[in-house]
């Protein structure tokens, strides 16, 4: 049924069907009267009297043209001229008469130069799709060079002024009336592709886009992004190009996915040296970080100085600060959706780099060309080598990451992906008693995905994934004595995309998960010990069902609405503690394996609207409700990864919910590639967690009694200017935001600013291609200081100087700011397949000392070292100290690619 389709023009070679072209593109043009010279606008405003009674459109237009002086142009194939028109008016403008004709005939018009172009109204087009003659255009969009699928590429049909974008698997589908269409396919960083198709039956068209060359001149090439701009109602969303990530200034030259989020308004990193971040007033555990669908619980290396993701292995980073699609759940505040490379389907390629911190190598190649490929990337630190020579007590000190992916296309309808990720940190040293002590944490994720195209309009992806996070603190490596906490999940999910018509796409799916949590127990000789209290493991089941509809109601109005139902069950084997009103433990209950003993369910609706004021401006609004059942229990104020303990919602920990409303405007400056957007939001979160003063978090079976629950709310204004193309690209952002918390048992029940309440935040990230071989980038970030608690007074007890606090988070760190710059040189002049680069970067160029800790309990020793006082015989002369992480840090790294 696809043989009647003819592709008329494109960058590729096609055989045009002249007859079809002639038939389809037949334009009937009247040129009445001769010597037409007036501007259309002045003609439209001229007043006339006009009377016609029940005559055909074609004749009506002819008569009207003679009377008004307008010239008309339309596609006779597309517009039905057998509609009868009746008009009887006196002394009205030509425009009013034209509007009447169009209304009666179901047409719209636009003036182009000196002509009036008539088109079928959008509502008429949609109506026509309900009838006979529907066809579906579908397929995959890929990189022409590597065969990598392209996520979010736009397919635009200028005749209908509508289109679609490719999904996370590069699949697109659009159902249209039988007709001929000019189709534009565009994607940032790639050459736009134009094709003319005569669609008389459904057609599968796989598209390959070629990367645009590096520009020597400031020639703006703006992809036709009208689909994503106009059609999408998605808010609070940003896509980071991994290519730009590689060019951003980075600490020790290590491009970092998580650290790069800091420059996005509304996202705040905990502090220097941290991979923890906060989104729109949400806590650190309320961000869902997905690597090819599998959650990564602690994406950090070296305590948080680096994140676990290898930039070269990443294909797409999509960030949702709100308005999270219904297909995702389980976290309140944000979604960081990271997709890895699939592997080159056409030929062997590799990349690698050597930096001050680590060495990376990635290879990819087809297994069978155009059929299947693999990708394998690894990173290994070399810090251990340095430290072992600094101190012979160091036994091991390293981190590593391994990313691999295998994909296989069985046929046009079925494709599978297998992703594996493993990353770990280990530090160990010899201690005084001949044992070795150390810490070790690791993330593992395994994902199997099956893409299945049921039909040209129905696409599905089924995913089976497992991921885990494991943390161990060894007191004796030789004897296998260690404290260990862990969290793991196994999930099966299916997502369906039904491309009903160009105006409507329905997404639906389900997910079933099991979560196992060890909140932290002590093992001696690898056996759970009874020498310290046992903290019960937690087992949980989660089911989720969702449906979401993306509906283009009119040409200007798009609405996306959906709902997600999640059901959470606590199951045995577990011991649950019962607490009295004062949160003292009074009893405990044992539940055998598999027995469900407590549950939660939440219906979380979401809706977003987009109204296009004009081709370059759109208003957007959204409401999102989210729910969360997994919580990081940690009262640390350290930016570093500490001993993480996760606990589920259950009898003693309520589920968390959040409601967020947001509204914004987006404006595209024509022919510049600059996108301006601004959003305001208000978010309210229930059952947030805080802790009693000096809560006992480790090896405490009654840890739930140390928790306190309350509400949090945040609001803010975010402004962002983005330029994704051209020699100068990047973004600038500003955010004014507040984040408050209120707990009945904390701060005397009064509201207080959250640690991450940083009212003013400004950032820019700019990349400039100096020439085809050299580019430079610059990143500046400014934010108000975090809210912290400092003493309001002191008192003395048994020689100690003790602080006295009257208010929580009553003070602030100094304002934070930092400037980073980098240069990247391509070393070979005329690269073909092989390219290599030298990168130089200076992190914290002007050496700003941004404190991460303030302390009031130190003395300065004779050797100018700050310590807590040892002699308490007399009042010590305490001083205030600040600890900061980064000074000026220059770095150099070498990077190569074999394409």
């Amino acid at each position, binding site marked *: 049924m696809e043989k009647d389709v003819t592709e008329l023009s494109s960058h590729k070679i096609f055989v045009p069907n002249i007859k079809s072209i002639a038939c389809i593109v037949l334009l009937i043009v009247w040129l009445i009267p001769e010597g037409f010279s007036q501007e259309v606008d002045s003609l439209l405003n001229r007043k006339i009297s006009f009377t016609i009674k029940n005559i055909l459109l074609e004749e009506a237009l002819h008569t009207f043209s003679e009377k008004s002086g307008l010239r008309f142009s339309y596609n006779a194939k597309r517009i039905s001229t057998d509609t009868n028109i009746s008009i009887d008016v006196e002394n009205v403008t030509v425009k009013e008469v034209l509007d009447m004709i169009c209304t009666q005939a179901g047409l719209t018009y636009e003036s182009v130069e000196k002509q009036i172009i008539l088109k079928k109204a959008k509502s008429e087009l949609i109506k026509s799709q309900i009838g006979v003659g529907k066809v579906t255009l579908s397929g995959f969009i890929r990189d022409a060079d590597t065969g990598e699928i392209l996520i979010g590429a736009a397919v635009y049909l200028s005749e209908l002024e509508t289109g679609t974008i490719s999904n996370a698997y590069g699949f697109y589908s659009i159902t249209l009336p039988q007709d001929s269409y000019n189709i534009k396919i565009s994607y940032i960083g790639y050459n736009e592709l134009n094709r003319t198709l005569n669609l008389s039956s459904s057609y599968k068209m796989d598209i390959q886009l070629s990367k645009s060359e590096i520009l020597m001149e400031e020639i703006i090439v703006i992809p036709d992004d009208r689909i994503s701009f106009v059609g999408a109602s998605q808010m609070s969303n940003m896509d980071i190009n991994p290519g730009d990530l590689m060019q951003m200034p980075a*600490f020790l030259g290590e491009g970092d996915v998580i650290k790069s989020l800091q420059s996005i308004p509304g996202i705040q990193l905990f502090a220097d040296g941290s991979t923890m971040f906060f989104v729109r007033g949400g806590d650190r555990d309320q961000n869902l970080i997905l690597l090819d669908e599998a959650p990564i619980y602690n994406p950090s290396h070296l305590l948080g100085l680096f994140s676990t993701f290898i930039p070269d292995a990443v294909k797409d980073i999509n960030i949702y600060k709100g308005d999270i699609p219904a297909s995702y759940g389980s976290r309140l505040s944000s979604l960081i959706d990271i997709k890895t490379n699939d592997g080159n389907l056409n030929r062997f390629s590799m990349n690698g780099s050597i930096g001050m911190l680590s060495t990376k190598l990635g290879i990819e190649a087809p297994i069978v060309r155009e059929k299947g490929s693999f990708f394998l990337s690894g990173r290994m630190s070399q810090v251990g080598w340095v430290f072992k020579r600094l101190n012979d007590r160091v036994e091991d000190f390293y981190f590593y990451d391994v990313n691999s992916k295998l994909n296989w296309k069985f046929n046009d309808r079925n494709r599978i992906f297998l992703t594996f990720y493993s990353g770990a940190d280990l530090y160990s040293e010899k201690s005084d008693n001949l044992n070795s002590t*150390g810490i070790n944490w690791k993330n593992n994720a395994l994902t199997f995905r099956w893409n299945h195209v049921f039909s040209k309009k129905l696409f599905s992806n089924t995913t089976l994934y497992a991921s885990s996070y494991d943390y161990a603190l060894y007191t004796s490596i030789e004897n296998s004595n260690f404290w260990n906490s862990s969290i793991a999940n196994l999930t099966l999910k299916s997502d369906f995309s039904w491309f009903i018509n160009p105006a409507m796409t329905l997404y639906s799916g389900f997910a079933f998960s099991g979560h196992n949590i060890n909140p932290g127990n002590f093992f001696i000789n690898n056996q759970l010990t009874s020498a310290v209290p046992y903290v019960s493991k937690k087992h949980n089941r989660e089911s989720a069902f969702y449906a979401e509809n993306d509906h283009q109601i009119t040409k200007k109005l798009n609405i996306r609405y959906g709902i997600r139902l999640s059901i959470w069950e606590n199951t045995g084997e577990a011991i649950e503690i019962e607490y009295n009103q004062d949160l003292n433990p009074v009893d405990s209950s044992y539940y055998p394996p598999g027995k469900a003993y407590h549950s939660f369910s939440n219906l979380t609706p979401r809706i977003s609207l987009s109204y296009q004021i004009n081709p370059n401006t759109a208003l957007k609004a959204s409401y999102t409700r989210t729910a969360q059942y997994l919580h990081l229990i940690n009262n640390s104020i350290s930016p570093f990864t500490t001993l993480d303990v996760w606990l589920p919602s259950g009898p003693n920990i309520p589920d968390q919910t959040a409601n967020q409303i947001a509204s914004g405007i987006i404006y595209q400056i024509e022919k510049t590639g600059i996108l301006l957007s601004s959003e305001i939001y208000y978010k309210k979160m229930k059952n947030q967690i805080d802790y009693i003063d000096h809560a006992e978090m480790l090896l405490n079976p009654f840890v739930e009694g140390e928790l306190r629950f309350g509400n949090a709310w945040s609001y803010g204004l975010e402004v962002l200017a983005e330029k994704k193309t051209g020699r100068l690209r990047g973004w600038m952002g500003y955010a004014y935001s507040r984040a408050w918390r209120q707990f009945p048992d904390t701060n005397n029940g009064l509201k207080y600013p959250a640690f991450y309440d940083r009212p003013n935040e400004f950032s820019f990230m700019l990349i400039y291609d100096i020439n085809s071989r050299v580019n430079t980038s610059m990143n500046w970030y400014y934010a108000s200081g975090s809210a912290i608690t400092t003493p309001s007074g002191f008192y003395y007890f048994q020689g100690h*100087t003790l602080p006295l606090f009257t208010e929580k988070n009553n003070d602030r760190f100094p304002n934070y700011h930092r400037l980073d710059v980098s240069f990247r040189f391509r070393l070979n002049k005329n690269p073909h397949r092989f390219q290599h680069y030298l990168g130089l970067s200076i992190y914290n160029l002007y050496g700003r000392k941004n*404190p991460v800790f303030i302390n009031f309990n*130190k003395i300065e020793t004779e050797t100018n070292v700050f310590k807590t006082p*040892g002699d308490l015989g007399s009042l010590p002369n305490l001083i*205030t100290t*600040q600890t900061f992480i980064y000074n000026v840090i220059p770095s150099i790294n070498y990077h190569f690619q074999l394409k």
Partner: protein
Amino acid sequence: MRKLIIYILFFICLFSCEEETDWNLASIVIPRLVVDGMITNQRGRQEVTLTLPVKNINDIPVPVSGAFVAITDQEKVYFLTEIIEKPGTYVTADTVQGVVGKIYTLYIRIAEFEFVANSYMVPVEPLKNPFIVPCDKQENFYHLIPESEGDPFMMFIFINWINTPFCKDDHSCHERINHYHLNSIDVNEFFKPDKEIICFPSGSQIIRRKFSLNPDHQRFIRSMLMETEWRGGIFDVQRGNILSNMSPGAIGYFAASTVVTDTLYIE
């Protein structure tokens, strides 16, 4: 394990990290009575000191004089009198001795305000031999590594070398070290900041007083260490007010402990 931190910070900071800073605290006068009191099983004067909080760090504490102070064990009442030479310090007669099994109540009245606290004592384990190790780069000087096992306890260690040839100035030849051993497990304790090492010469006299800690007292000590010796490492926890067993309006702690004492001389 702290070496890990040192290495990482060395690596990333290029020799930066901690420095002295000026910090303007939003200090206020806090109307609280600070109580530091204890009754022990050692026959003698039992002592309670009363002071007021200070606004700024290193300010001299203001003693609270003229208070009515008493300790009861539900059978007897021991009245405390203020030492004229040490305002704010109240003592019992020198024949008072606490015992295990009784609940002791501290009663304080200042003007119309009354404050009470209860405590009880548990047995203390015998003292164990300490490790005495030479100090780096200081010949004939040593430092003491106290015991850290067994039941929770606190130990006050008084070191005096006034009568040795190493003493150049009488005022700087004696030190007091507070040492604590708890059975809690906290990240910030594990990664606590370095503590000043007190070195003393051979010939020094060391008096060790080891106090038992009941569970409530232990929680108080833990809370206090969270804001003192354990504060300033890289895994700090949220700040908070230190626990107290005093009734509202007062802070500090009234403890009841059994004590063992010994005296050592460093040869």
